[in-house]
């Protein structure tokens, strides 16, 4: 064994090539990030179950049809991004970029749908704890969707740099992991806010 310093004990040595740790770090970050959502979710549940009148005056409940369409789009984008990754591993860059772009578009559509929904609501974020938690949860999640789209855009640009193909690998993996994360959070959020009324 000659050079390598960054080895798991017992693993075979790789000459000169230090394995990267970005993905490990990113996964740790996602685990940590999920706790913020957990805090918001449990706060929502606690406030809702202990509230005397949960919905602000004049609000009947939330319309769930459009958010459901939004949900379907977002969940499917998890599939398209997985396909994109698959084609990248096959080194088919055209299909990778196609599906990658499609996932971005679906994410953007989700955000658009969210904005339309927000603008049609009769309550604001100061309308009691219901309004506050509703906007906090959907807003914070929306922020993550926007971040995801930005990350995807970045990876897309990186894929055009010649020779960068290998280095961007972990970035693509991390981004798609992030996207699945955003998706799972949304499903819980949807159940919590729209289904449990």
């Amino acid at each position: 064994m000659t050079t390598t310093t960054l080895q798991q004990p017992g693993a075979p040595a790789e000459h000169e090539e230090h394995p990267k740790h970005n993905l490990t770090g990113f996964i740790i970050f996602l685990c940590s990030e999920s706790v913020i959502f957990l805090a918001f979710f449990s706060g929502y549940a606690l406030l809702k179950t202990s509230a005397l009148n949960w919905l602000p005056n004049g609000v009947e409940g939330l319309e769930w049809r459009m958010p459901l369409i939004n949900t379907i789009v977002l969940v499917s984008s998890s599939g398209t991004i997985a396909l994109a990754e698959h084609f990248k591993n096959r080194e088919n860059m055209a299909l990778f970029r196609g599906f990658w772009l499609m996932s971005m578009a679906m994410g953007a559509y989700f955000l658009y749908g969210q904005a339309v929904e927000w603008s049609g609501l009769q309550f604001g974020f100061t309308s009691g704890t219901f309004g506050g938690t509703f906007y906090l949860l959907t807003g914070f999640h929306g922020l993550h969707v926007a971040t995801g789209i930005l990350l995807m855009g970045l990876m897309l640009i990186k894929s055009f740099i010649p020779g960068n193909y290998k280095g961007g690998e972990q970035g693509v993996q991390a981004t798609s992991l992030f996207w699945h994360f955003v998706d799972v959070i949304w499903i819980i959020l949807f159940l919590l806010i729209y289904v449990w009324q």
Partner: protein
Amino acid sequence: MTIATFPPEPTPEQGWGRYFGFCTDAKVIGIQYIVTAFFFFLIGGLLAMVIRGELITPASDLVDRAVYNGIYTMHGTIMLFLFIFPVLNGLNNLLIPTMIGAPDMAFPRLNAVAFWLVPIFGFLLMASFFVPGGPAYSGWWSYPPVSIQNPVGHLINGQGMWITAVALSGVSSIMGAINFVTTILRMRAPGMTLFRMPVFCWTALAAQSLQLIGLPALTGGAIMLLMDLTFGTSFYRPEGGGDPVLYQHFFWFYSHPAVYVIILPVFGIFSELFPVYSRKPLFGYVYVALASFIIVGLGLIVWVHHMFPSGVAQWMRNLFMVTTMLIAVPTGVKVFAWLGTLWGGKLRLTTPMLFCLGGLFNFVFAGITGIMLATVPVDIHVSNTYFVVGHFHYVIYGAAVMGIFAAIYHWFPKFIGRMPYEGLGKLHFLLTFIGANLNFLPMHPLGLTGMPRRVSSYDPEFTFWNVVASLGAFLLGVSIIPFLLNMLSAWIRGPKATHNPWNAIGLEWLLPSPPPEDNFGEEVPTVISRPYGYGSGQPLVEHQDEIERRLALQEAAA
């Protein structure tokens, strides 16, 4: 592995400049953290002197009552977020890579960003002294409804700045934690399995896992607090249907584990130093290592013991009383392991050892009052009295800060390359140990007889113990002088340190002092045995004798 070019050429002197800039070397960042932390320690300490000066007489005569509220709030906040956490992250930066044989942290740039956030939010917090209405005054835990009042009405107010600073501190700590955990998991030297890792790294791993699990909850809670304060939401506002106790859950879900984030690395320091200075292997290494993670598990399910008087259900009180008491078990395992290590050892009473012994003594005392506080009826009786203040200062000053001093004296020669002075060190120890006990012991009888905390005036019957406590505090204030003198003069003109002045076993002691920029570089020795092989004669790494011989040659040549 081969050791063809070992030891690496010592890196030429690089001057002071790099300590003031954006540097990605973990050893520089470590020192940046520690020096910054002690800068804030002096400010927090000065505030403590004002507090004790006020409390030396029963009347509220030194500062205005409202100012007093701001002073203890800022004292607690500065000590925790700008002293203890940064100083521990400094030690992590110095020790983790060298102890596991890594050239640097996994993400050097992230590391530097995490550090530079500290002076930024430190500045923000200091600036809050000068805004209209003064700094935050709702105590270091910032409970609503007090913390969501904005009587001055400015958008920029002390409380808002406090919340922003704490949130930034959280971001910085999360960045640090990601880095430390990744480094420990992925960058260990060949042959260093988890159960050959020094206990300090085990405790750092445990503490940083707690940061990752707990901190986001506080961040989430703080975001909601800031919105209540600034944008008129009512998450915690009872009149708007909100629930102030919800904040307490968020706060303590993190802030209780935070005390383990503080004390676990100190356990690590004890476990490193006792074997060195008693020339015996650490007693029960595996159990000490694993106990850290049992503390993590239990530490996450005890937070409601801070809320016994907050109107939580009786079943919750019972449950959390039991989990809290269970923590005494893994902690006891560690204490017994240290005693077992000391037992029959050849004790060398150097400055670091004295600080460890003093710290252990204080810790055991704090453990006893801790068990008392875990008992619901006792806790409800002494809640919000000086008994609590006494208890946690025993842990935090008596044990944690003393352990940190021990670590600084012990590893100073390694990272600065010069020896601190023993005489000044022992004087520092003596003043600290006496001062701390004189300061914090009287708080227990005060609390038991009913003196509330967070008051600037009190009934004259409490005068005697308060005077004693204040004298102890001033002694503590003085104790910092020999420390600073020692550090400065040793740094500038202390005797040169050899690579292993304490005769310790560990990868970091197989490096020149100070270590070269990328530590072992490409030639990390292969670890072949457990740490702490004192008295066994078993080498820690392959080619140990050759490495030691070459280091000695290099030193002789210099």
